[in-house]
């Protein structure tokens, strides 16, 4: 049974439709991520769930309790929704110590001092803030402040945890560490979590399911592996990881196999699996990820999907190489193992993996 249900929700700011009739549901205990570029409506969606914004159409309900309904004119204010929220900017209260930041909500709920102390100590241990209770909140490092914000959101045992780009202000190394910790914490506490991010790596690592958003709508909602391996729209392909788009024309379709000629790449041949709605003569885009292209410095025996290109740039990353190759006016990005060392200006052979090519009508 879904825990949180969003049905046909819209929110506009003046002429801009931030969230456009979206619907989805979140299961109990799930880590659900809203992923997309800035301005795609992901944060607005989270704010609608938190009660910081009111929907103009549709309904939001949690476990059969209607939190907001434009049609029934119901709106439960944020402080009555029992949700914990963490912001990108931490929003640690500067006039309070770590202990006060975390315990203040409990104090105003009228809990006894002993109970507050116990709960706060427990949650500070859980987020890894030992012995920092008496420090002023804003004198901590970014990572520690984010832990304070997390502890403050978790201490009153909310039913849902809302995270708005919580790791985006941290440096790369800390971000990776916090990502792993956050995942472990979420699993330990078992709290239903909605996570907003523009960082696809974060979404991949953390989520049970990901909703990729664009222009206020959900482009695809699926598990991270499905999103990556089986993207349903061109936007999703573009947004998740790097991808090459190769304009082509369909030459023939024979028993499920499709033969294309790459229009910008000197009419080079591409063979791949056919797709239902593509016919002979159609103009298409063939997309393929850089890691699905192999590079050889000498011609190999096979001929299928092998193109002779010239190397434009070669970048050494230690654990892998990133190449830009050129054929005609088509630029192809490809990753390879560091053992392949082609230099700019040299010729190289690229092989496109037929099973990894996706076709879109252009």
């Amino acid at each position, binding site marked *: 049974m879904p825990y949180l249900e969003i049905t046909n929700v819209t929110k506009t700011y003046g002429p801009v439709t931030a969230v456009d009739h979206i619907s989805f549901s979140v299961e109990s205990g799930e880590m659900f991520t809203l992923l997309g570029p800035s301005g795609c409506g992901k944060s607005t969606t989270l704010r609608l769930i938190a009660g910081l914004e009111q929907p103009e159409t549709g309904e939001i309900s949690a476990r059969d309790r209607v939190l907001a309904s434009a049609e029934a004119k119901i709106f439960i204010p944020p402080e009555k*929704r029992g949700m914990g929220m963490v912001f990108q900017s931490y929003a640690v209260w500067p006039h309070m110590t770590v202990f006060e930041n975390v315990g203040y909500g409990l104090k105003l709920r009228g809990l006894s001092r002993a109970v507050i102390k116990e709960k706060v100590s427990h949650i500070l241990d859980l987020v890894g803030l030992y012995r920092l209770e008496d420090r002023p909140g804003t004198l901590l490092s970014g990572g520690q402040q984010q832990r304070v914000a997390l502890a403050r959101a978790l201490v009153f045992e909310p039913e849902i945890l809302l995270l708005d780009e919580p790791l985006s202000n941290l440096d790369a190394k800390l971000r990776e560490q916090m990502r792993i910790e956050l995942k472990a914490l979420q699993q330990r506490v078992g709290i239903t979590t909605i996570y907003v991010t523009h960082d696809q790596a974060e979404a991949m690592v953390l989520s049970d399911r990901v909703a990729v958003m664009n222009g206020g709508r959900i482009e695809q909602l699926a598990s991270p592996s499905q999103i990556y391996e089986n993207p349903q729209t061109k936007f999703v392909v573009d947004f998740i990881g790097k991808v090459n788009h190769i304009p082509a024309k369909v030459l023939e379709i024979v028993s499920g196999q499709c033969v294309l000629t790459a229009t910008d790449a000197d009419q080079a041949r591409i063979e791949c699996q056919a797709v239902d709605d593509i016919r002979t003569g159609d103009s298409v885009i063939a997309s393929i990820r850089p890691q699905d292209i192999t590079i050889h410095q000498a011609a190999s025996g096979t001929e299928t999907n092998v193109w002779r290109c010239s190397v434009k740039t070669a970048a050494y990353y230690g654990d892998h190489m990133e190449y830009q190759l050129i054929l005609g006016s088509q630029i192809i990005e490809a990753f390879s193992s560091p053992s392949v060392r082609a230099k700019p200006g040299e010729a190289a052979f690229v092989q496109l993996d037929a099973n990894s090519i996706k076709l879109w009508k252009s």
Partner: protein
Amino acid sequence: MTYQFDWSVLWTGQSGEWLLQGILTTLGISTLAWLLAAALGTVSGALRTVPFAPLRALATCYVEFFRNVPLLVWMFFWYFAVPPLLPGPLQDWLFNHGAEFWAGMFALGVYHGARFSEMIRSGIQSIPKTQFEAALSTGLTTAQTYRFVIIPIALRLIIPPIANESLNLLKNSSVALTISVTELTFQTRQIETYTARAFEALTAGTVIYLALCLGIATLMTKIERRFALPGMIGRVASAEH
């Protein structure tokens, strides 16, 4: 120059008593007016930012009404214009119990309250919106959020301009002499009249105002240090460490 200084006029006769009484009255009227201004300013400054239009409008009316009329006019208004509107016995009672002091205090308080209000509003508006939202999502009501998070932060941020305005308030209390409040300026004028020693009398007044203001400025600096927000007013905080 033939002028013969005679500083003894400041302590012979009744002068010393007058000066002392003037200082006490100035401090009394200023302290009460400051408390009134701080209360009115905090409440109306906060109301100007709340998500409820009628309350915002009310606070805006207060600010615009009181800060856009000269203080002197308010003094006359509260002293000469308002009492006749009151019932007779209350009028008599007021004039037997220092009506000019209360009218002066009231004028000073509401006038500076409107000015405090703008500072508090700017303090609140300088706080990131997420501080407010974090409080709401922690379960605090809007009123609790203002009372325990927003206003405490805003007041700490605006201590320097509030110190400045507090000095103005003390100095503006001298305007109350026009409705015959026997404050410091009134008393220096009285000494001058009785002794014909303008230079000595006004020098005494000047020095006393200067001392009072420096005292308040020092106090406010201490308060500023004491309540500095760690990590926000960095220079003061780090100077202490």
